[in-house]
């Protein structure tokens, strides 16, 4: 049984621990939790956090367009900047702090060697337009990663330049549009099929390219309904966009039948690779009949999410789509590497360019370091541990929470909210109560096919003891919810976080998207007043 982490051990001397009832402090701070103004409320003219030499006087060559007036940037010294951003950092939850079970997002450990090698001067400090003779190592690095990605997926080609998963979707779907164009079928094939459980990026991408998105229903096992898919396929279908393992955390067991049917109908199979981390090193998507798949390097290969990016979304391509891959790509020559870009004589008909320069090199370095550290054996083990951990969480919670589908699951487990029925506690309340227990909530209300969805992805990075503690916390929350008298308590959560529930309706109704001197601070503590 999991032990509570309460360290008071029954000793006397404990004071009330209810944060809301605790006395106010003069500063508004609570020990390590420091209330922090905006930089615009801290600046003073005459302060600067850098020392730059006096510029020599030269005659302007600015075509008479010298900027007048104040820009309005605040002046802060270096120690102020360090303190400000350190304090802000302490208001964030992070993988480095513990279990971050955000389903579909893959919050796994971010090794620091990856940061170190990406910053080596000979890698991090290179200009993308240096003569190729001076960046042979950089091109070799990209080509090495490309080789790993192709081999791990069993696919013959890869486009490295997409900047994130959604950008990779754009790449893959443009390649499909180009392939249809080359066959003279683009005007006729205007439909893209996607399950209702798809990531929002899938329909958004297809629609941006002028396709009509047609939803495919799921069967009662949470997989694509093969009969419905076959009925929907026809000469007007361009492609299917399918996530596998899917967003319910399940492997599409009829995937080979799906890809065969799609190909027989003359359409292409776009695989959303957001969940490749469940199978990397164990299953090759090329063996499943996919035509293209983006790989979120920031998920499967652990480049840091950084508070919302940057990511990278290379796209592996089948032989049918490879000729349409966008500029640029790396070409191995006799004794080195070069870049195929506009003006290079190439085979095939690239569909264009998605981005300036060569792609997210900084992410390539980190992902390659991660991949080399694991190797073929470690990647397989990591996928297995991720799947094992998710199934363990499901097994340990299935008597008190309600898994949406029978097992086994892959790297994430999906629960619906039926275990909260008649408790007055919603999925949102339940998730917010997890915050007070020291956890980041799971993904909520996604996928849309399950009522009150809770998608938990523990990843392979958590020790069993930590999973047990997490499971214990969730069991305790379910018990409290099921008393039927705890709804108010749940609705008041979180109480111990740097902020309590925020008024999102107010934010959307009267958007304040920037600081202005006239913004009235809703609460002016002494620190803020001193700063103004």
């Amino acid at each position, binding site marked *: 049984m999991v032990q509570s982490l309460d360290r008071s051990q029954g000793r006397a001397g404990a004071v009330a621990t209810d944060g809301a009832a605790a006395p106010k402090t003069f500063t508004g701070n609570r020990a390590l939790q420091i209330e922090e103004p905006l930089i615009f409320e801290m600046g003073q003219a005459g302060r600067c956090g850098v020392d730059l030499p006096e510029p020599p006087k030269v005659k302007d060559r600015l075509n008479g367009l010298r900027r007048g007036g104040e820009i309005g940037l605040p002046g802060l010294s270096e120690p102020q900047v360090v303190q400000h951003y350190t304090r*802000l950092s302490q208001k964030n939850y992070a993988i480095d702090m513990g279990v971050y079970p955000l389903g579909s997002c893959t919050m796994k450990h971010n090794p620091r060697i990856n940061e170190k090698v990406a910053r080596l001067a000979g890698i991090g400090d290179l200009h993308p337009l240096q003569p190729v003779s001076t960046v042979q190592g950089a091109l070799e690095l990209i080509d090495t990663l490309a080789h790993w990605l192709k081999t791990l997926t069993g696919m013959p080609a890869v486009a490295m330049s997409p900047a*994130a998963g959604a*950008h990779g979707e754009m790449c893959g779907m443009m390649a499909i549009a180009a392939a249809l164009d080359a066959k003279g079928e683009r005007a006729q094939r205007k439909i893209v099929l996607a399950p209702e459980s798809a990531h929002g990026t899938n329909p958004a991408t297809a629609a941006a390219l002028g396709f009509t998105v047609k939803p495919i229903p799921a069967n009662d096992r949470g997989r694509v309904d093969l009969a419905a898919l076959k009925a929907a396929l026809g000469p007007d279908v361009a492609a299917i966009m399918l996530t596998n393992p899917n967003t319910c955390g399940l492997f599409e067991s009829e995937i080979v039948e799906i890809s065969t049917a799609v190909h027989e109908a003359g359409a292409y199979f776009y695989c959303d690779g957001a969940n490749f981390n469940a199978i990397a090193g*164990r299953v090759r998507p090329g063996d499943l009949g996919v035509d293209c798949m983006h790989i979120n390097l920031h998920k499967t290969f652990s480049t840091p999410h950084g508070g*919302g990016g940057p990511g990278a979304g290379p796209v592996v391509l089948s032989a049918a789509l490879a000729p349409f891959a966008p500029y640029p790509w790396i070409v191995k020559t006799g004794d080195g590497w070069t870049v195929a870009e506009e003006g290079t004589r190439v085979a095939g008909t690239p569909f264009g360019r998605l981005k300036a320069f060569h792609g997210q090199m*900084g992410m390539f370095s980190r992902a390659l370091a991660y991949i080399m550290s694991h190797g073929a054996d470690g990647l*397989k083990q990591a996928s297995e541990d991720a799947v094992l951990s998710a*199934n363990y969480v499901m097994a340990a919670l299935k008597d008190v929470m309600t898994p949406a589908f029978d097992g086994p699951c892959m790297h994430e487990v999906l629960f619906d909210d039926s275990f909260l029925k008649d408790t007055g506690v919603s999925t949102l309340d339940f998730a917010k109560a997890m915050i007070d227990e020291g956890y980041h909530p799971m993904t909520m209300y996604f996928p849309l096919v399950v009522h009150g969805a809770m998608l938990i992805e523990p990843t392979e990075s958590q020790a069993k003891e930590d999973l047990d503690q997490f499971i214990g916390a969730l069991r305790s929350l379910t018990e409290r919810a099921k008393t039927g008298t705890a709804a108010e308590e749940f609705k008041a959560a979180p109480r111990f976080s740097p*902020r309590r529930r925020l008024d999102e309706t107010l934010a959307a109704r009267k958007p304040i*998207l920037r600081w202005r001197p006239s913004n009235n601070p809703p609460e002016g503590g002494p620190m803020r007043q001193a700063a103004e």
Partner: protein
Amino acid sequence: MRYLPLTDADRREMLRVIGAKSVDDLFRDVPASARLPGKVAGLPDHQGELEVERAFQGFAAKNVSPAMAPFFIGAGAYRHHVPATVDYMIQRGEFLTSYTPYQPEITQGTLQYLFEFQTQVTLLTGMEVANASMYDGSTGTSEAVLMANRVTRRHKALISGGLHPQYRGVIETAARWEGFNAVVGKADVDGLEDLIAAVDKETSCVVVQNPSFFGHVRDFSKLAEACHAAGALLIVVVTEVVSLGLITPPGEMGADIVVCEGQSIGNGLGFGGPYVGLFATREKYMRQMPGRLVGETVDADGKRGFVLTLSTREQHIRREKATSNICTNAGLCALAFTIHLTLLGEAGFRRLAELNHAKASELADRVAAVPGVTVVNDSFFNEFTVRLPRPAAPVVEALAARRILAGVPVSRLIPDDPSVANLLLLAATETATEHGMAPLVAGLKEVL
């Protein structure tokens, strides 16, 4: 394996709790035809940190870093000094290893710096609202065109010949596959292009760059008036954001959307990425913007806090009706930008811009004195175009062989126009030194 905490005993116990015989049981939904007998063949096994680091040092050793050579390359990516504080702060795990701030109660750190970022972007560009970043300048520009198409319900974009050719390529790719018309101007080498006459009632937007790809500083006020008279939007692109410390911002010229490549502030060259796109517009177009927005609000105790807002524009809510498919953006690069700009402040940012202009002016005077070399520009910020007496590409190669990274031959980015073959772009930032300029001038004299 150092990243995997589960022991074999843990795994056995977990399988027991699950009720599975082996981990293979958990993969039973994988079709038999796709089950590999073991690990993926043909790839090496795991390595220690020392071995990995050695491999990367091997890659690094095959490159010539700008730190090791006289360096004058720009063309959309600029080498500036980034204070050590920036890289230290962005590596704090609470920033580095946090996700998109979907749970605002425990991500106020990210949300507040993005709110600061958005404010800084509006101040630099002279615009009213800004989003929480795009992937980079090139993709941001393409998104700006799509946004203008939505706002105006028109489908013809006029693209200046002064726009970075790879940015132009990204727009043309979007035009071809997303279905609009991109009318592209001829390479505007002399900075004299006038697009006013081309703006008509079908035009959704005009896309210009300032300073232009060739370095010219232009006033687009008249063009903005012409756009507005015709019901079109003016999109101004800035690939060197430091220029905004010295040059009239696009907002004051009447721009409707401003897109900048923010790499110069806080972010290294990084061989082309990741960078950070800045995206700003007028308040009236706010709800047509792509990407994430952070807004101010209050929490249950009435304390000021920040949240992601207006997300009904976005793909995770709106799906096929979203303003863009963008999801992950450039959060950590935006943080680097914000910290660096906060260190600079008003005084530092302006001085940095002055230094850049002074260094480039010095470089222009020096290379103009090389026989056969002409500086094309009357105006520039920290980058300008020179005309050589022979094709620039082999000249750059010859200088690279002497370990001088001289600049970008225009033909590398505009390969299909013989009239630009002899043109070379040269940039000088605050990092340029006398020790670098002298060898460049000497090298040019030798190889020309």
